[in-house]
């Protein structure tokens, strides 16, 4: 058994890991939030008047709304010090050759362009507040798939954007939704036409390059009837000694018979407040699958939500939350059953280590109209050491008598008998623990595309090596 103190030092080193992210911004607006700043963001983007009005309306709501009185402690967030808009010094490119060296190097450290070449149907890369690269395979373009950065979509497809923008996450939803509506920048717009099944995943990658900045990207995904797509979202930032803030929003519309798998690998640095909103609405026979692996951030509040509006629609939610030293990850899921015979499963796993705090918070609601529905929620927490904490607080509301609902949660450590058994089969203690943890997260890993599963396993190996090795 290796020394525990050394383990924590290793973890600390990992936190401080930095890639090069030294691209100079073209300009950044001053920190703080007011009407003038909102208008300047809009001006910098040359936005149509309806979007300017929308931003100002959101700002008014933000100013009037109280801070939510639940979740992680957010007292360290000082919006007067957050830089809401940082424009990278580069024009949007559709070829990696056009992306400036400094930014390219940062993304190459993450293996992004290589991933595109090997197994992606399209890729978007956001640096600070703007998308710096967006590309999609020609054959998908010909099939009518629209994969754009959000700013371009506002100009090129205004009617589509107007129909969907902040309809699932209205600015009145909460103070941070209003903040997002006022200062949003960047993000992805994806439309998959009726019957089109995209054979390879599409990905957007979000990278921070400036200390004290906020990232407020907005993503809209619309899957028309009987279409299918897998979308991958990744996020990383170098660590700074000031607070960074991420308040992204994802709105997903899955029409009749369509299927979406939305994968997130969140590896923000340990100075990041990650307050992201993700919401999907599923129509008849549609299937929404959320798969999330959260390793990074200082404090997180993310609860991917699915509204099962159509009859026979399905929601699956698999998540892994890895809370290390100093981290408070408040994650969970929301599922609202409205249609008849709707189905949902939630499988939430957490690992707490080195004093980290993982907190599962969920809502499962079966409305009166959702007759014949079935839902199950399972939460499992693994506490690797005695310094950490693991909590689960699910809320389950069943408002009709014709549905079956089950929930279970377990929290514990790796059993001595499990270790003993594996050691009796020739493994040493580290290998035994490693095998058990990998088995624990296997349901999440197997949902990822092969190449990402390999990458996630490598990440887990690193975490395990430095944590329990």
């Amino acid at each position: 058994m290796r020394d525990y103190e050394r383990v924590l030092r290793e973890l600390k080193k990992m936190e401080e890991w930095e890639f090069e992210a030294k691209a100079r911004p073209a300009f950044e607006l001053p920190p703080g939030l007011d009407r003038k700043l909102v208008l300047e963001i809009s001006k910098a983007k040359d936005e149509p008047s309806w979007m300017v009005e929308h931003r100002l309306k959101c700002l008014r709501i933000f100013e009037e709304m109280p801070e939510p009185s639940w979740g992680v402690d957010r007292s360290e967030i000082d919006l007067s010090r957050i830089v809401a808009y940082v424009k990278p010094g580069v024009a949007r490119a559709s070829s990696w050759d056009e992306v400036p060296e400094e930014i390219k190097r940062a993304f190459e450290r993450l293996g992004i362009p290589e991933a595109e070449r090997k197994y992606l149907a399209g890729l978007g890369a956001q640096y600070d507040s703007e998308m710096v690269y967006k590309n999609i395979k020609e054959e998908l373009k010909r099939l009518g798939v629209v994969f754009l950065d959000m700013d371009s979509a506002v100009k090129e497809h205004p009617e589509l954007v107007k129909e969907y923008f902040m309809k699932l996450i209205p600015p009145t939803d909460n103070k941070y939704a209003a903040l997002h509506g006022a200062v949003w920048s960047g993000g992805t717009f994806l439309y998959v036409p009726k019957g089109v099944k995209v054979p390879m995943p599409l990905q957007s990658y979000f990278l921070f390059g400036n200390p004290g900045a906020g990232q407020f990207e907005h993503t809209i995904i619309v899957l028309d009837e009987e279409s299918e797509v897998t979308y991958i979202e990744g996020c990383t930032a170098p660590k700074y000694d000031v607070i960074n803030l991420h308040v992204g929003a994802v709105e997903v519309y899955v029409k009749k018979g369509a299927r979406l798998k939305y994968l997130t690998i969140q590896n923000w640095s340990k100075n990041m407040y990650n307050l992201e909103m993700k919401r999907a609405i599923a129509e008849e026979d549609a299937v929404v699958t959320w798969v999330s692996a959260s390793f990074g951030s200082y404090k997180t509040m993310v609860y991917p939500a699915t509204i099962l509006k159509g009859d026979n629609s399905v929601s699956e939610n698999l998540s892994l939350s890895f809370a290390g030293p100093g981290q408070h990850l408040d994650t969970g899921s929301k599922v609202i059953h409205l249609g008849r015979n709707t189905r949902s499963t939630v499988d939430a796993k957490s690992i707490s280590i080195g004093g980290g705090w993982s907190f599962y918070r969920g809502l499962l609601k079966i409305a009166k109209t959702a007759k014949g529905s079935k839902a199950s929620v399972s939460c499992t927490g693994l506490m690797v050491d005695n310094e950490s904490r693991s909590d689960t607080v699910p809320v389950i509301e069943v408002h009709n008598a014709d549905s079956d609902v089950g929930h279970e949660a377990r929290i514990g450590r790796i059993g001595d008998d499990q270790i003993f058994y594996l050691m009796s089969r020739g493994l040493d203690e580290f290998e035994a623990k490693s095998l058990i943890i990998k088995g624990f997260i296997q349901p999440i890993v197997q949902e990822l595309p092969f190449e990402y599963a390999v990458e996630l396993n490598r990440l887990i190996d690193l975490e395990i090596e430095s944590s329990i090795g």
Partner: protein
Amino acid sequence: MGYEKTLKLEHRGMKAMLPEVKRNAGADLDVRDFFPSGNDVLDRWRLRRFREYQSYGFPVWRRVGLTSFEPPRVEGYRGLENIDEEGLALLEELDFEGSDRKFVLMADVFSMAGEYVVVSSPQEKVVVEVDQDVANSLLDLRGGDLTLVRIVRRERFVGNLRVKVREKARFKLVNLHLVGKGGTSIDNVFLDVETGASVEVYDFYSGGRVNVGFLAVRFSGEDATAKVRPYYAVSSGSATDVLYQMRFYGRRNEGTVDSKGVVTGESKVVFRGVLDILPGAKDTVAHQRNHTFLISGSAKAEAIPSLFVGENDVVASHAHSSSPLDETAVFYLMTRGCSETEARELLIKGTFEDLREELRNFELEAVLDHALEGLV
């Protein structure tokens, strides 16, 4: 001295925010309702509590639709008038937040029934029917084996029961809430369990428009056990909201909450569970389970089964489920000669069979049968 908070969400310098309780400033009890007990030591303590009481409005409980609260009419003081300094120290030690601090304080200050009892006899069984709208009792169980059957059969009720179960003592509580139609009941029970002690609770809720219960077990010692068996029969538009909390401080304690109940008509149950295992509470075993049968199309079940774990050397779990009556079971019973109504009645009553067995020891089965009448 600070009181035992229902939720403690802090960890190594980090904290989680808790939603603020909305409160309203309606009609309330005031100094004219403060009747001296004849015990100066107690009254000084009550006055301190009264000041704290005045600092809160009545809570608004959205889930059970309690938007206002009409305070009871207070006509004198009864409860802990025989308490001494030692008893008051115990009261402080067993101070708690409960379902809401306002109601705990109301019962402390304005009780019209209750007792302070020190028990050390080898074995005792007591049946008590609470005969006032506000009650406050303190039991100091210093040894032996006490069984207390407490029946609350009121139109309205606000009550506290605090029990100190000292080393190796055994305590069984059968707590029956049979609230009158249209009434409001808010009961707060706090049990502190020392080393080697054991606790068994049968808790039953029925009736009322709003029926709120809180029962906490604090494991302050080691090697203690607590088995809590909540039951609820919710009908006639009632909303029942119960919270069962177990907090583990010491080592090798074992606590289980195994709850079930039936909801019918336009009624609703809210089941809350809190298992809170603090750092250092090694070898804790904590399990919580709830199943709700929803009998009518308009019945609602809500559950918030929470698990807070700050120690890894534990076995902790919770489970919740809800479903209609098992149609296969109904069919099976019908093949055995029951009518459909009889089959359903059998299945519903079967849910409460363990409680009925317990009540049989006190010849109180009829109380349960009466409470279930409207349900089947």
